[in-house]
Structures are given as C-alpha cells and as structure tokens.
C-alpha cells in the first residue's frame, strides 16, 4: 500500500521537479518581468478573481437551492451545472461559442440588436473561466450545506428571523469554510483555464492572453519564458492549496470547526 502510494507521489512530484530542473534560473527575472509576461500574469489575476466573484454570486444561491429545495429533476439540474467540470475545456469553449458567439443562440441577438460582442473581449475570458470553475464552488458549498446541523437555523426561524436573515446570520457563517474552499478551488481552476478561453475569447496580449495561453505560445519561441510562467502558476496554486490545508477535501461539517 505504502509502496504504491510512494509511486503515486513520485508520479506527481517528477513533473514539477523536471520543471525546476529546466527553468533557466539566470534569465528567470528578465523573463518574468518582460512586458508580455507581466501582461499575461496581470490579466490572469484580474479575470480569475472576477470569475470567482461571479461564481460566488451565482453559485452560492444555486448550491443552496440544490441542497435545500427538493424539486423534480434536481439530479438533472445538478448534473447540468457541474457538467462543465468534466467536459474537456475546449468543448466548453465550443459550446460557449455556440451560445454567446456573434452567430450564437444568445450572442447573435445580443450582437444584432445591441451591438454587444462577447468574443475577443476580457469579459469573454471571464465568462469562459466562470463556466469551467463555478461547478467547483457549487459542489463544495452544496456539500457544506448538506452537512450542516439545521437546528440553529430552525431555531432562528422559530424566533422570528426571516429566511434571508437566518441565511445571512446563521447558515452562511456556518458554511463559510466550504464557501472559502470552494471559492479557492474555483479561483485556481479559473486561473488555469486554457481551452475554453482560447476558443471563445481568442488570444491577444493585454486583452485576452492569460498566462496559460502565453505559456502555450511561448513554448514555440521562448521555452525559457514558458517555463518561468509555468513555474509562477504552479507556485501560486501550490501555496494556495497548502494554505487551505485539508479543508477542501469534502465539505467541512460545522461540528469540526
């Protein structure tokens, strides 16, 4: 058992060790502070944070409905909402295209009537990233809500609290670890998104070229830059996962706080 686990650890560790081994350390600072690198990193930061905010605003209510409201077809709705998590991202990109592109189901009317275009924009990047990362938040929060002890909530309601008050002052604080963990996972997923972004939003430095796209293109010309940017993404994600400690391994029941 330990032996197999050891092999698994090796399997995960080797790619990162290999990366560390191939990074051109002497040029690293220059490669990192280059205009194209900084643009990509800054864009990645902004869009991934925006995507996380959208995921929170839309995802927490969704998780609440999925956890608390029994309705026919709930399983179907849940499956639909987390579908993008298991889809190959480029497929997600194609689907977004079909819905929000200039000739898309919704994007077509948006463009023809209001002149609004979502593709090739930073907003398009946020849409693509939200699409692939929100399921992580929804699942985490739903699990957290399901694992909650309902009694404090019910007690608040019987004491006269409105639904919204009870949610805000009793439920939400109790489920905060799950929301935080879900938000961080969603953010990390949004940060690493490539397939849907490049398909839907395109690739333009400063506007839509996020770090994963920059890495992909840098691979062809300047491997050093690709390696350095990859390292940054890995380190950031690693630190974030470490900081979460084990809280993201399934919902955090209120009892263990």
């Amino acid at each position, binding site marked *: 058992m*330990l*032996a*197999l686990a*050891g*092999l698994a650890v*090796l*399997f995960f560790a*080797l790619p990162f060790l290999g990366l560390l081994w191939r990074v051109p350390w002497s040029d690293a600072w220059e490669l990192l502070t280059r205009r194209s690198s900084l643009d990509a990193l800054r864009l990645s930061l902004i869009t991934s944070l925006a995507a996380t905010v959208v995921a929170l605003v839309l995802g927490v209510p969704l998780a609440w409905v999925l956890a608390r409201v029994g309705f026919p077809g709930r399983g179907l709705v849940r499956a639909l909402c987390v579908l993008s998590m298991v889809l190959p991202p480029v497929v997600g990109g194609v689907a977004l*295209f079909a819905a929000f*592109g*200039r*000739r898309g189901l919704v994007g077509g009317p948006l463009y023809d009537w209001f002149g609004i275009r979502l*593709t*090739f924009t930073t907003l398009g990047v946020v849409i693509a990233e939200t699409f692939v990362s929100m399921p992580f938040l929804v699942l985490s929060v739903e699990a957290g809500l399901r694992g909650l002890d309902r009694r404090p909530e019910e007690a608040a309601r019987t004491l006269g609290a409105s639904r919204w008050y009870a949610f805000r002052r009793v439920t939400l604080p109790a489920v905060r670890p799950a929301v935080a963990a879900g938000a961080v996972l969603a953010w990390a997923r949004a940060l690493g998104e490539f397939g849907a972004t*490049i398909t839907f939003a*395109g*690739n*333009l*430095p400063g506007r*839509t*070229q996020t770090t994963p796209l920059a890495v*992909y*293109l840098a*691979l*062809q*010309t300047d*491997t050093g830059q690709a390696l350095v940017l990859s390292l940054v993404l890995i380190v950031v994600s690693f630190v974030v996962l470490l900081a979460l400690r084990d809280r993201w391994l399934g919902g955090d029941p209120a009892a263990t706080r």
Partner: protein
Amino acid sequence: MRPQSTAPAASARRRWFVVAVLLGALGVVAACGSSTSTGSDAGPGSGPRGSITVFAAASLTEAFGELAEAFEDAEPDVSVTTSFAASSTLARQIQEGAPADVFASADEVTMQQVVDAGEVRGEPVVFATNSLEILVAPGNPEGITGLADLGSPGLLYVTAAPEVPIGTYATRALRAAGVEADPVSLEVDVKAVVTKVTSGEADAAIVYATDVAAAGGRAEGIAIPEEVDVGATYPMALTTGAANPGAARAWIDFVTGLRGREILGRYGFGAP
C-alpha cells in the same frame, strides 16, 4: 494499555517505501533510455515498407490527406500517419523528440530553426509555394475590396501568432501595402484563423489561397495584388530521428514528383 511497540514494523515499512521509490525512479530512467520504434527500415533490394509519420503545416491538411492516400495506393506496404499543426508547434515538438520521419513547413524560417537544432538529415527541398488571399464570410458582408479595408476601425481582423508562418506572412503583406490592422486575436494556426471567419466571429483574415479554396462555400476570397503578396515557400525535409528513412525518402520523392505536384496543384499550391 501499553502502547504497542511499532519500531520493527515501522522500519520495515519505511524500507519498502524507499524500495518502491527507487524502483519507480529506475523504471522511469529505463523507459527514457529505450527508444520507441515507429517503423521498419527497408532492406536492400526491397521496396519501402512499414510506416512513416509526417509532420506538416496546418495549411497542408487537405492536400497531404489526399497525397497520403495516393502514396499508400502506390506503395501498399507503407502506411502514412500525418500530424497537422502550426509549423512552429511542429518544429518545437520535433526538437523535443517527437517521432516524425518527415517535416513539411509553411516557411523556410521555421525549417531553418529545425535545421539549426540539428534535427534535419540532408538538405530541405522546396516542394510547393502558396499565395495569400483575404478571407471573408460568404457574400462579403463588410464589403472588403483590398488590404486597406482591413485597417477599418470596428472591423474584426484576426490573424495567427507571429511565430506561425501565416502570421508573419500576413504582417509582411500589410506592411508592404502600408496598412495598419489591429487583430482581435492571434490564433495558434491558420486553420483556427479560418474557423474564426467561417464561424462568423471575425470579419476578415489573411490566409493562404489554398485555405480559401478548402473552405468552399463557407467563405469567400479576395485577391491581393501581386506586388504586396509576399507568397509562401514550403520546404520539406527528412528528420535525423526518422525511424524509417527509406520510406520517408520515398514519400519525399513522391510529393516532389509528377503525381505529387499534380495533386498539390489541384488544391491551389504553386510549383516550387
């Protein structure tokens, strides 16, 4: 209750852990050392046999597809596997050890990179040329008449990343015409550029004439005057890592021969 003494059991487990890690590392090193064989070389006096892998620029997708079939018909003992992507992507893959027998690039700059990296056996041979055209949606809704229109504000002009051959060709053509066009996206290869226009997301792009032909009814082409059409040159070469150089050389001869030129010509490629 006294805690159980776990010292002997723990050290035994630790030993197994270390053994497993070492074995794993050994396995990895061993796997790296062995080379995968992709094809068998032809023996003296017999025709080409086995399989070859051809890495070709994205713009060659349709033409090389037919060429591969025709070659397999002509040489039944050889099977051809093709891999299409931007020439720059393929060049990178070859330099990282990808198992290609032949590399066909859409420009000489990318081929030179592969030559400089020592991955080419012998001399590259130019097997085709191509010309540039403006690609627009059917019916030309934006009313584009020439390169100058690509600089119109509000027009969604899309091109490929500069490392990709068509990206550089397009920039040079625009510069030759004195036009400044801001692209809304830098795609990874010419086919992605074509898709952006045929799907309606972008209004116009500069692609190869062969791509306009290949798009059929999904797009229209607008000619570029010869003075600014920089034209494309396609070299092909045998790789040093080719596992089946005999059959690979037969492929190169086929493509550069009469039959190959005829097929390429039908797709819109010019003579070398």
